[in-house]
């Protein structure tokens, strides 16, 4: 799995951090998304996909 995030689209809702805290974080200075792991291991794939589904700004793209 490959994950990309679009910081310009991000609205800082924090949904991805709740869904997959090992994969996503937020910058302290503006709350925008930080991708912690570009290729999450198998055990984090489901949570990562769920985070992409939740993102209100469609800022997370997952490729398998």
């Amino acid at each position, binding site marked *: 799995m490959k994950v990309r995030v679009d910081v310009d689209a991000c609205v*800082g*809702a924090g949904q991805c951090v*709740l869904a997959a805290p090992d994969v996503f974080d937020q910058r*302290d200075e503006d*709350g925008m998304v930080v991708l912690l792991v570009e290729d999450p291991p198998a055990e984090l794939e489901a949570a990562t996909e769920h985070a992409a589904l939740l993102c209100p700004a*469609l800022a997370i793209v997952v490729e398998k």
Partner: protein
Amino acid sequence: MSETTIGVTSFPTTRDSSCPFDPPAEYAELRAQEGTASLACPVGVNARVVSRYADVRAVLSDPNLSSHAAPSTHVVADGQLDRPVAPGSLLHMDGPDHARLRRLLTPEFTVKRIQAMRPYIQGLVDDHVDALLARTGPVDLVQDFALPIPSLVICELLGVDYGDRDRFQEQTAVLIGTNSDPEALQRANAEVVGFMTQLVLAKMAAPGDDLLGRLIVRARENGQELSVEELVTLGITLLIAGHETTANMIGLSTLALLRQPDQLAALRADPGLAGTAVDEMLRYLSIVHFGVLRQATGGVTIGDETIKAGEWLVAALSAGNRDESVFPDPDRIDLRRGATAHLAFGYGIHQCLGQQLARVELQEVFARLHQRIPTLRLAVPFEEVEFKDHALVYGVRALPVTWDVEDDR
């Protein structure tokens, strides 16, 4: 498709009194119809009402749909859709202007920052439970629990001085109360605007380590200094959005859970369930119950239909949240459902900025109230509870509750 081909022609606003937690029955019909229905809204425009989950998400994430009209004014007869938007009205802004302003606020509501507020919120909930238990029922849970907790959280967040919090709380309670007469409402509105203006001026002169202070400094450092007017509008937006919604969720969800003893017993037995329980109750109750209004600024496609520039759309959040293709058995409360993808906080660029704060407040209430007062129950027959059918945010006017005195723990 003409407006008369659908069985419903006016915007549904009336619920079935036998199940006041369910949206008006017309929404289930609308979801089952092909396409979207064009309905007459009380404000005086026809709007296409989008009621399926996928369509609600499509509408709310489409950049060709503008938010400049107030979010729920389609249900208000004198909603004034064309009135100018005040500077700093985040909810009514679009595109880059909205993004710039929102980004000044997002660092205040990150998951991390809100988690850091959890101990404060826990203490606040416990103090209010203590105050209930120091009395004997019945008490009105709305007045003595649901309203003050989010109000004090907002005071803490905005940096309102301790000495001013009682007055601030009184006036905002009048402002968001639906029992207030128009004159009292106007007076409270003027008071809150005056109060917020004083607060903003004080923070501009000496920015402290609180939301308003940090916002002022951040904006200056980014070269986008905010005016007094913008800061007052933002402060009041945060106040109303953070207070009214959370207070109504506390009151209404407590009542709904008291009516579902099996679910309530599960929550009482396992307070760890509070996390998923909160999202399920947000989905089930969808208190921004009339949905949100958008206007097309360019061509928009919803399913097979084309919406032309200038046309109005309503994204019916409550209907999307009962879409059986996404939430099986949608009219049932299932605290273990894991309904995090619900639409109660909206979707798209305007999705609730304070959602993490709302979640933590509700989680602490859910985990503590029923644990500490296990015999909590309604003190009047259910039929006597009054619902705010026509308020923009749904809820109960009052919630008389009582408990056994042995519950003091």
